[in-house]
């Protein structure tokens, strides 16, 4: 291996690491606020890329239909479940927000899809379709289980993952897509060529991480999310609506997943089931950081990305094995560390 190859691999590692960092941070966020290990995170990545691909092809993405169906299901379920505590006003709000709005959106997409309005519009539409799915999935699958143990929530998350995977196959087919890059150019950096799309990914990632940091440290709503994570009962006692913060966390996770998918869509071919493996690597990073620290998760993600790209070069057949084996020493070390700090970590 020479320096050029090393640089090339490092570039790859940084890009992958950036995406894993976003996904890892989203997983930590969702887990902290709702105790759900958000296995379907990867589906949002795949759908982000595939929804843009469908729009580029001038077709109606299946996700537009799915949003309408999910909205209808969530509204129906909630009316049935909470019929004793439902006011007319509340039902009206739900009908507008969960049923009318998604169907209006679907109509709009069907009408506008053949017009090919350009990449910026596709990205916007993709986000508008995918972000509300996060809270809808939370309401359908996890809110009713809010007080269940972590294991039950995890099993529910796996169930959701498989259903979404199946829906992805129905909507997008088994075919893979590669999207048009935002910036189709490259420039030389030392001995190698850097794709502008790669720089774009790193910049967007850094901006998103900075925005998330500011949100959690500076805004009352961000602090309310952290408070829900730290002490759920305490949060309720100061009047933080913990269901709403749960939905908020899922919306952020859906947004982060969709953005990741939109970013990597032009760099690699995405299939309906590509998301899981990508999400899993974000998960590895989150686990290395103990599902708790955002900065540590981002760092670990960079490590995972680097390890992946270098092992792809040295032992490409074992690339995934090497990345996932990283978990073993980390977990062993964590279990030792936990043994010593048991009493301190209560609360």
């Amino acid at each position, binding site marked *: 291996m020479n320096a050029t190859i090393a640089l090339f691999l490092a570039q790859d590692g940084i890009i992958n690491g950036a995406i894993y960092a976003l996904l890892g941070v989203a997983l930590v966020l969702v887990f902290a606020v709702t105790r759900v290990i958000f296995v379907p995170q990867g589906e949002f990545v795949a759908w982000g890329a595939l929804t843009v691909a469908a729009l580029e092809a001038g077709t109606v993405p299946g996700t537009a239909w799915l949003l309408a169906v999910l909205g209808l299901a969530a509204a129906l379920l909630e009316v049935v479940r909470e019929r*004793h*505590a439902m006011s007319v006003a509340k039902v009206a709000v739900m009908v507008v927000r969960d049923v009318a709005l998604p169907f209006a959106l679907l109509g709009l997409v069907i009408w506008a899809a053949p017009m090919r309005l350009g990449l910026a519009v596709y990205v916007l539409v993709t986000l508008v379709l995918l972000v509300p799915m996060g809270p809808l999935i939370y309401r359908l699958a996890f809110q009713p289980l809010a007080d269940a143990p972590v294991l039950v929530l995890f099993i529910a998350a796996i169930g959701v993952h498989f259903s979404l995977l199946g829906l992805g196959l129905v909507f997008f087919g088994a075919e893979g897509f590669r999207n048009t890059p935002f910036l189709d150019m490259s420039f030389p950096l030392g001995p190698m060529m850097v794709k502008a799309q790669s720089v774009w990914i790193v910049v967007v990632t850094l901006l998103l991480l900075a925005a998330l940091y500011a949100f959690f440290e500076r805004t*009352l709503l961000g*602090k*309310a999310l*952290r*408070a829900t994570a*730290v*002490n759920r*009962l*305490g*949060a*309720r*006692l*100061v*009047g*933080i*609506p*913990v269901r709403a913060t749960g939905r908020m966390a899922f919306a952020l996770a859906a947004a982060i997943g969709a953005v990741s998918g939109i970013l990597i869509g032009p760099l690699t071919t995405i299939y309906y089931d590509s998301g899981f493996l990508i999400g899993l690597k974000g998960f590895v990073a989150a686990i290395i950081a103990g599902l708790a620290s955002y900065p540590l998760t981002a760092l670990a993600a960079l490590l995972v990305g680097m390890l992946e790209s270098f092992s792809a070069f040295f032992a490409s057949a074992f690339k995934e094995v090497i990345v996932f084996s990283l978990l073993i020493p980390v977990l062993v070390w964590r279990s030792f560390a936990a043994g010593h700090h048991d009493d301190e970590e209560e*609360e």
Partner: protein
Amino acid sequence: MSAHILEVSGLFVSYGRVEAVRGVSLSIPVGGIVTVIGANGAGKSTLMNAIMGVLPSRGEVLFQGRPLGRSLVEARVGEGVCLVPEKRELFAAMTVQDNLQLGAYRLGRSAVAGGMEEVFARFPRLKERRGQLAGTLSGGERQMLAMGRALMSRPRLLMLDEPSLGLAPLIVREIFRIVTDLRKDGVSILLVEQNARAALQVADEAYVMELGEITLHGPASQLAADSRVIESYLGLGARH
């Protein structure tokens, strides 16, 4: 509007098969201080948690004349009910300042600055420690923070579960002064205290709770003179 801010009637709360509160009725006049005294395990905390909506209960709870029904804790906070629970439930991994800010969550950001000034004026100790994580505070400082966080929400009905637990006498006096001050601002208070003597001194009305039931009720001064109360809860007579 009724003269009572809170009216509880026939309240039952159970943990599985064990009934910890059995048919309790109690009411708190607007701007009044009511205390519930009783031995350990009598069901005082359970009663408060049920009123707050933390625990499910049977029976009727009227707040400002309207039934609270099955509304969520966070909705009750929105109406102006606030509980300082026995275990305080602070945000351990967040700073003193963040804890206080979140106390005003239902009022929004605009209420934060003024409220914080007031709390710091009452508890200068918290001002010194405002950048410290709540989980690293001393026991007494934690109590002050719990009280401060509750005051930030400007409640109409404040329920205090043993607010003086583990505090030095000077701060205990401050807590009781706050309780009487709050009454002047029209806040109604439900107070549970191991220090029954002090509680009966500040309260207008008192209830005695035994094994989940109310056994005595009357003006606080009258109960303070009642021989059964003196014997069981004020620690005289029992010693001979």
